[in-house]
């Protein structure tokens, strides 16, 4: 009964792979236990190569875990989960409409109906009037709006977001963060948001999960009690900065003295 209120239940997830050139066995994820209740916004942060994106792919079913179990629990009729990919992951040969309705077409929905059902989501992400444009005609921020709409169109319970704003410039990224919160409050989804941007993780989330350097495991699971709705000036408050310091210290300890990769990207 308790399980049914969880959107994600991960137990002992382990990921190993063999390096192609050295034939060495590498452990990408040591052990991940993670419970996420319905409706929660959880960010996963960690140094580069800590396996956070790998974990998301395992949840999405794109990669098979070496060990452990993943349960995703849907409430409604939609699929359990959908992925918002990193930048430039729209199909360049489809228009915004073609891309956003893609998930529905995958489910066997006829094109005409898929287009009708995609329209409200295109409106929600603020792309009305751009349905007929091709991705190359859109800015990076608009492309990621379409990317988000594509995942929302299939009405998933769990939204998996893999560094969706990493390639955007700083200002666009902040605008998109605010936009994402607005869309999230309307769409009422559970979100796992992978990022290496500490302020982004804190600003968006109810919880920030901090992962260690490879092999990845959970170092800390921090509740962010900053209330909602949130506006950008929140980032300048003392409470926010305190969270930033707390997360940064955890990650800083993970970085080797020579500094192979920085958490701030």
């Amino acid at each position: 009964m308790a399980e049914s209120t969880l959107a994600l239940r991960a137990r002992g997830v382990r990921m190993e792979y063999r390096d192609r050139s050295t034939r060495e066995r590498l452990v990408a994820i040591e052990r991940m236990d993670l419970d996420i209740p319905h409706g929660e916004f959880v960010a996963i942060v960690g140094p580069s190569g800590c396996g956070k994106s790998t974990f998301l792919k395992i949840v999405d079913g794109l990669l098979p875990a070496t060990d452990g179990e993943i349960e995703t629990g849907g409430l409604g009729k939609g699929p359990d989960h959908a992925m918002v990919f990193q930048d430039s992951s729209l199909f360049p040969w489809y228009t915004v409409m073609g891309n956003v309705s893609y998930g529905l077409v995958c489910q066997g929905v006829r094109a005409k109906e898929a287009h009708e059902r995609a329209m409200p989501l295109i409106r929600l992400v603020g792309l009305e009037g751009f349905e007929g444009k091709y991705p190359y005609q859109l800015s990076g921020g608009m492309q990621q709006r379409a990317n988000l709409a594509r995942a929302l169109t299939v009405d998933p319970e769990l939204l998996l977001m893999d560094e969706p704003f990493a390639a955007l410039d700083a200002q666009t990224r902040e605008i998109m963060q605010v936009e994402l919160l607005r869309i999230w409050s309307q769409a009422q989804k559970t979100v796992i948001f992978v990022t290496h941007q500490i302020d982004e993780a804190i600003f968006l989330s109810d919880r920030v999960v901090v992962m260690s350097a490879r092999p990845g495991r959970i170092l800390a699971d921090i509740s962010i009690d900053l209330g909602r709705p949130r506006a950008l000036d929140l980032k300048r408050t003392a409470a926010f900065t305190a969270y930033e310091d707390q997360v940064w210290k955890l990650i800083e300890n993970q970085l080797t003295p020579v500094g192979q990769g920085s958490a701030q990207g």
Partner: protein
Amino acid sequence: MMSQALRRTRQGHPPSKRRHPNADQGARFTVPNEPLVYGVIGFILVLVLWEVVVDVGLAKASLLSSPTRIWTAAVADFGSGVIWPQISTSLLEWIVGFVLAIVVGIPVGLALGQVQRLEFLVEPWIYGLYATPSVALAPLLILIFGVGVEAKFAIVFLEGVITLLISTIAGSHAADRRHMEIAQSFGASRSLTFRSVTLPSSVPFIITGLRIAAGRALVGVIVAEFIAANVGLGFYISLNGTTLNSSRVMLGILLLGVFGIAVGQLIQRVERRFERWRPAIH
């Protein structure tokens, strides 16, 4: 121009590299559609030079001919109509063989790209035939199909289909890993993945294949007609070559060039139609 630039400098606008005084002068000579205008000028310049070189006796007209001599030959042969069967026969051979190559090559190439083991199975034959010059194959095909158009269809088809197979197979493996992941993530069926990712990703490769195949097919037509034919542009060139009629040889070559350019333009149209989603390169 110079004084103007200097005055500007004195007024406190340092001349940047872009506003070099000479740049303004260069800009005054800009003409609309530069590539076309300069292309035509370059073409005509060579024709004039050619004519002059032959007329002043620097080169033998009997070997090199000259633009006016070619023109005279063209007027004669188009006037009498003897050149039309040569053109239409070569054109027919090329079209039939090339269309067959498209109809077979693209679907089979896509299918082979989907079934890896089958691809490995036929690969040595495809690459072997691709590496074989058609000159070597032509006598055999003429033995089998005779001196008529059928042998030429076969050669053109073979040249075209092998090229198209290679490029189409390459294209069917060209899909971006990220795009495949998206299809997988949203649970696309195998056939939808093929239609929505594999096929669009292969288009640039197929178009390149068409371009190369068109050229190789034309070589096939001419080679086959050189070896054994009694009509066709290759036959026309070869016959007039043996009778030392260099003007008609040149005319034949010129017609082939015109044909090559026309086919290139046609393929470019097809390309534009299929790649609306690409930003214009220029």
